[in-house]
């Protein structure tokens, strides 16, 4: 189980980790606040993840609309239940 979780974490780069490494690489002169907007784009961080959902049969794409499959609905229920249990307010992501 730990291997599966680690694999899924490694498979796709975490933007937070990439951002931290980018800031660290900038060294003592720092990384300009505005520069992140230039390379963190929807095409890089959001749309590929939407495509992953379709590829993994968690969502289906029909007539220009994305909808969850039964597998995706179950997944959403599991995470929503635990988020409610923890009283998480932030939408996450």
């Amino acid at each position, binding site marked *: *189980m*730990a291997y599966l*979780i*680690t*694999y899924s*974490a*490694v*498979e*796709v*780069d*975490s*933007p*937070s*980790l*990439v*951002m*931290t*490494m980018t*800031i*660290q690489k*900038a060294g*003592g*002169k*720092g990384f*300009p*606040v*505005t520069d*992140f*907007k230039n*390379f*963190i784009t*929807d095409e890089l*961080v*959001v*749309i590929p*993840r*939407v495509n*992953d*959902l379709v590829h993994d049969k*968690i*969502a289906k794409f029909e007539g*220009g*609309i*994305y*909808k*969850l499959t039964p597998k*995706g*609905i179950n997944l*959403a229920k599991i*995470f*929503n239940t*635990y988020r409610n*249990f*923890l*009283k*998480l307010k*932030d*939408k*996450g*992501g």
Partner: protein
Amino acid sequence: MIIETGANGFNLLIPLLSFSVNVTFQAFLFRSRSCGLLKSEYIGFTLGLVLLLSLQLSLHPMLPELTLDALAIVIVNLLIFCGLSYCYFHFINLCTTARRIRLVRDLFASPSGLTLDQILENYNAQDMLSKRIQRLLNSGQIVEQNGRYFASKHLVLFAAWLMVILKFIFLGKGSEYD
């Protein structure tokens, strides 16, 4: 000759019991807003670990006489507890930060489905960027001075390099951002 290893049914329950304490305290501390999410995870893990070691010590009060077999049981129980805690830590991370889970939850909230434009209206790169920058600033991993970010703590940085190495080992490739 019978070698006393301390192996019994209770031994099997020790890591599960300790893991339950980890989850219970983590959830209680965070739900009551006694501390932040990451801190609640650290405290839950520490309490579970303390319970595990205490129970193991209570089974083997004479540590110098600990046999190799008994030591093996202690090590295996530690590994089981750490493995379960590791999975729980990642499960919480998925609940709070995973992009795919966020998208799945957005789609779940719209049973009739969403177009790509509607998905991006709810959640886009700029939203994600501001949330994550704020998290890194709040946890002190980075600081902002005169319109520039600087790395301050090295915990996330260590995790980042570990992920780079693991990605190379598992998938044989580098970052998708390069």
